[in-house]
């Protein structure tokens, strides 16, 4: 008898505690920016695709759910011809983001990806590519790399000396 009354009293007191349950989806939870949710492909500060199709994310992926093919534009800037993530396989481990040398692939706080049809979980590049830089503003791989692309010749990248003239006779 006493035990029952004690239990009821504790339950009664809980009415005055702060509620732990959030009324999702009416109320959105607060997700930290480093949450590992839906994967996106970002753009560099100049608005170009950051992904250079190096295949490192695909190699790092433990469930092999990333497939892509590299191609080049007329100025030899490399980018993915197609980039596909099968989210029905993705385990959101974030290895792809860790492997990415250009900050292109990023995991976002968005986890609302439920679908009735598994096929809709296959995201192509058009679905993945966002318009901004995502979590890492400022970085532009091609400004650092030594390769020539449209609008950037040899010696014009960060910390580069102007190209050597192989016909020069000067010591």
């Amino acid at each position, binding site marked *: 008898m006493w035990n029952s009354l004690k239990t009821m009293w504790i339950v009664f007191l809980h009415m005055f505690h702060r509620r732990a349950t959030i009324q999702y989806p009416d109320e959105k939870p607060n997700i930290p920016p480093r949450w590992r949710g839906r994967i996106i492909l970002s753009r560099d500060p100049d608005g170009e695709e950051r992904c*250079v*199709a*190096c*295949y*490192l994310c*695909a*190699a790092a*992926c433990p*469930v*092999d*759910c*990333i*497939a*892509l*093919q*590299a*191609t*080049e534009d007329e100025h030899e800037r*490399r980018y993915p*011809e*197609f980039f*596909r*993530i*099968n989210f*029905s*396989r993705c385990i959101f481990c974030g290895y792809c983001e860790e492997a990415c*040398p*250009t900050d292109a692939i990023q995991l976002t706080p968005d986890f609302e990806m439920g679908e009735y049809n*598994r*096929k809709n*979980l*296959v995201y*192509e590049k058009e679905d993945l590519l966002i318009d901004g830089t995502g979590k890492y503003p400022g970085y532009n*791989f091609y400004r*650092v*790399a*030594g*390769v*020539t692309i449209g609008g950037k010749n*040899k*010696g014009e*990248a960060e*910390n*580069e*000396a*102007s*190209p*050597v003239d*192989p*016909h*020069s006779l000067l*010591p």
Partner: protein
Amino acid sequence: MTTIHIDNRPYPAKDGENLLQECLSLGFNLPYFCWHPALGAVGACRQCAIKQFKNEEDKHGKIVMACMTAAKDGIRISIDDPEAREFRASVAEWLMVNHPHDCPVCDEGGECHLQDMTVMNGHIYRRYHGRKRTFHNQNLGPLVNHEMNRCIQCYRCTRFYREYAGGRDLDALVLRNQVYFGRHEDGVLENEFSGNLVEICPTGVFTDKTLKRHYTRKWDLQTAPSVCVHCGLGCNTIPGERYGTLRRIRNRFNGAVNGYFLCDRGRYGYEFVNSGRRVRQPLLRKNRTQLLQPASKRGALQHLGEMLSAGARVIGIGSPRASIEANFALRTLVGRDQFYLGISERDLRLLASVLDILKKGPARTPSLHEVELADAVLVLGEDVANTAPRLGLALRQSVRRQPEEIAKKMGIPLWNDHAVREAMQEEHGPLFIATLANTRIDDIATRTFRGPPAELARLGLTIAHALDPIAPQVPGLSNTAQALAGAIAEKLKAAERPLVISGIGCGDKAVVEAAANVTWALCNMGRPAELCYVVPECNSLGATMLGGGSLETALEAMNDAADILVILENDLYRRADAALVDRLLAAARHIVMIDHIKHATSAKADVVLPAAAFAEADGTLVNNEGRAQRFFQVFVPRGEIEGDIRGDTPRDIPGDIQESWRWMRDIMVVGRGDEGQWSSLDDVTAACAAAIPSLEPILRAAPSAAFRMDGQKIPRESHRYSGRTAMHANVSIHEPEQPQDLDTALAFSMEGYAGHPPPSLIPRFWAPGWNSIQALNKFQDEVGGPLSGGDPGEPLIEPTPGKKAAYFENIPAGFEPRVGEWLLLPLHHIFGSEELSILAPGIAELSVQPYLALNPEDASNLGLTAGDEVQLRLRPEADAQVDVKDAQVDVKADDSANVTTTAEIFRLPLRFEPELLHGTAGLPAGLTGMGNLGGVALPAWGELKKVEKGKQMEG
């Protein structure tokens, strides 16, 4: 053998060999850049630093370069010494100072020796934040990409290109920290081994330009051991596939055959597999007036079944570019007496003669590695640099054998490459080249001789006579030729390993026999002479060993009323005169073509079945030395379904392409009801070995399909293969089952045995910490030596040493120039003369265009100047009746603006060839776009006339 002490532990080592090679052979991971097993040591990169101690008490020691230090008995060294480690790490850091931040967009990434060595040295963080030196790149042609910023100045490229391969247009320019490796200006790299720079370069300065267009990392490629199909040498290759298309070829080391290097035709010819000219589904027409229409596999087979069950007589025409198994399957289908080889009568006689000489003569035929060891060489009649390029590279090494004695006398070890070259200077060992025109290896020749085949044969016979007076004597030879023959005979006689190279490239049996006479004369004198014949195609010798009549005899058989002609992987218009092929095809009621590309012959077929190309099939090829080598399927081909590089077609839908022998089996099943005769390649190989005893060793060319390592198959995909669950997801979310491989011990999977498979089954070279092709070191017992377990390949031809062979007595008459007529000689070209590689865009870009070559004097006698066109009229054969309309080739790619064809009159641009003899003219051999000239057997006589500009051709 001697004992060396590494980090206070004794190890066996080869006395006098350099320590780097010994350490690597013992399995140590010692970093290096400039050293290469084939190039020797120069000590340029300072990366292989180790500590050497005076004795056991010496704790201080001194830093030495392992590659420049000889292994001596009792030598005490340390690889692990902290100071040596620090030294190596600092060298790596210093080499990385100017290295660009390129790895993600660099094609070498993932198989980069520089990456491997940097990790091995523990250099993981860049401390240098200053400005990096940069270079402009050069356009080096369609095959090799140049990205000079990545260079670490190891000098491997120029050492290979200039010193090993004899190239002249790539060199080190400028000085100090600005050294630049390139040409004097943009332009195509001239040397035909330029593709090896891709593998030689330890970083990404030289990369594969054809791979760049459909780039895939090494770990994503599905690979299998294969054999090159672009000439008769049978170099071992590793083709790589991704998303259903072939992406690149890499060298597969075979110590006896190709060693570390491939020619550009072999490396870049692979793109024919992806070509738009591929047959990807059965094509069918019920009567000749219709066009070929796509059909289902079942429909095509049903149609064939109806044709066959009517009791028709079937004639089969095999092919020297199809595997032994495919040819044997056709032979089984049509019966031994109805099987013909699809080689012209003349070529078949030449091949039979080659086979006969190799089998019955006392001389053995050398492997390419043994060619490199020959110390005096006579090349008789064969332009090896064009018909068998890798052999030309081997000859460049053979001329070093005699001058090496100078270095040996001076006590310089042979691995000390630049010291040896300094000692040798410009000395070359004896190499005599007697050919139709100049060759690209003339620069290393002691003497050259030019002439039409008859003159070459007469020179050869005279050499034989000079060696052995019993050999027939040639009357009426000029004094200069007589003197040359004497000089050649002297050098061959004095050599320790004399070698004679010939082939069927100049189309003359007397030349083949003369080469045999020279070698046999040497053998009869007790010299260990070797005899090497170049054959034109990857399975020329295998097909000849299989036996069967020529195309001409097939025509006779067709005229004896046969109904069905089954042609296997063969464009007959390349083999014989168009008129003959027309008659052959017209005589058949039904023509069944089984091939992987569309061509002039398949355009005339009633049924075209899509055969698997070399990367899509398994089989055995026999190379020019009679070595049977198995090639393995790399990937399951896709069919003619909408789909492209994006991988829109899931690869578990194999389409209708299948191995030729499977088509034969299916035809036998529908036609005769021979249910279940063969279910896997092993069944065909076994049946072939049982039927033809001389081919029995092909059973041992590779382990059978039942072979397992630790109960597992050997995976074609690396353990890091990516995208498995996403690459087909756009088509179906349900992942397809891996294709099953019934034919081999390899699996289309990343799962399986992870260790080292037997040498003939190695699908890729990789070892922990060694991602680049240099991982090969881990697959050899002794670095630079044969693969652990022996080099792959089974010899089919065993010579009979000590046997006295009777000399060939046939002496051709000397060449007499005719008035108004020219002897047309075949001039071979590495890019253009081969049927398949020309379908690769990179090779096609480098291919020669149709021409007619004359020496300038003859040309001016005809009133011709550079840029003129020549009208060529072949001397009509007695029975040639050409139906002009039929003779026109109706394959698009064969159309060429340069050649106008009407019957046997041709119009060709003139080209000067100063070394052609008076009275002879040169035509490019085997070039597509030559119209009906493509099938004309050269040498042949023809009349030449100047074409007046702006004037129409005369009839």
